[in-house]
């Protein structure tokens, strides 16, 4: 069974925020909900790098372990989803998550947190596939359509990879090996001529 994963190639990411807006616009998220975000380190200095972060759809996910209502579940293909009908907005998942993926909109009463929202790997949610309810609560269900997640598909430099863990690992490994050609950089000049 394919195991869905994200991988952000730090050497490629240019912090253009394309993934962030693709996600927000594609799922019509309210302002303030960041299913995906871009983080820059060493800004303005040599060694500046950026990375795009969202739910990593962990195997044995910590959020599932701490959820008091069992609202979070993992599909067979590894995608971790939340059932917003069950979620009580307690926020434990946020505290358990290493990546800060869970997001909480302001609910109605006293501005308390509403049901948790997070990256769905564009796989919708537990509501009937392609139903109005699914779209409203979880956004598009692109996986059911056989389409790639928006963020990775719209990544400007193809830094963000999404898909079967084994496949994207292969791609990334090849890239690394190829960049490794940077090691041999100049060798052709030094030895061939």
């Amino acid at each position, binding site marked *: *069974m*394919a*195991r*869905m*994963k994200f991988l952000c190639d730090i050497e490629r990411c240019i912090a*253009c*925020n*394309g*993934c*962030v*807006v*693709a996600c*927000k*616009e*594609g799922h019509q998220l309210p302002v303030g909900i960041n299913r995906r975000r871009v983080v820059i380190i060493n800004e303005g200095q040599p060694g500046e790098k950026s990375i795009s972060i969202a739910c990593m759809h962990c*195997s044995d996910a910590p959020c599932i372990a701490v959820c008091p209502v069992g609202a979070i579940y993992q*599909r*067979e*293909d*590894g995608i971790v989803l939340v059932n917003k009908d069950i979620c009580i907005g307690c926020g434990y998942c946020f505290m358990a998550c290493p990546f800060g993926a869970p997001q909480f909109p302001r609910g109605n009463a006293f501005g308390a947190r509403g049901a948790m929202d997070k990256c769905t790997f564009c796989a919708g949610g537990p509501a*009937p*596939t*392609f139903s109005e309810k699914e779209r409203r609560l979880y956004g*598009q*269900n692109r*996986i*059911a*359509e*056989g*389409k*790639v997640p*928006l963020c*990775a*598909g*719209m990544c*400007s*430099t*193809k830094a963000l*990879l*999404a*898909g*079967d*863990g*084994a*496949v*994207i*690992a*292969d*791609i990334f*490994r*090849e*890239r*690394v*090996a*190829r960049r*490794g*050609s940077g*090691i*041999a950089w100049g060798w*052709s000049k030094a030895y061939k001529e």
Partner: protein
Amino acid sequence: MGAKKVFSNPAKIAGKPITLNPKLARRAFLKIAAATAGLTGLALSSKIVRRTEAKERPKTPYPGSKIIRTICTHCAVGCGIYAEVQNGVWVRQEIAQDHPISRGGHCCKGAGAIDMVRSEKRLKYPLKREGGRWKKISWEQAFDEICSKLLEIREKYGPDAVHWNGSAKVSTEMAYLQRKLAAFWGTNNIDHQARI
């Protein structure tokens, strides 16, 4: 399981022969497109999808929609956009994975291209400033007033009393008409963003 696999591989990377053969490298690179596109098949093989499919659900979230190819309006790279339109409404921006320049890629501006027709801030009708306030007017009134004022100025001061600022954000055809309009108006006072 997948995680472990990723974890156990790195040792091989170092041992892999380094190559500068561009042909080989290119073939490898093309797989990246396959990576995102390749997911397609994999996702469909998921049991969950199969199970839901058995229940005869609609094949697409927007039945009867059609895909229109168009081009991003933000910068001159010329990224492709697939606009999914259902009943005359742009419902979704799709990934133009097979566009030769952008290959589906967008920056944040392009990823939100659909907002150009969705934004609540779009102007809705012609406006005129009157007594310091904006007043809604009809198109007919707007055209009549503007054109008669322009003609009046032309009459009184000459054609060069009007400056036209054209645009680099319209189609080539429209830009051409802007230049042509200035010529027919009788002035060379026309310019656009390429100047600056």
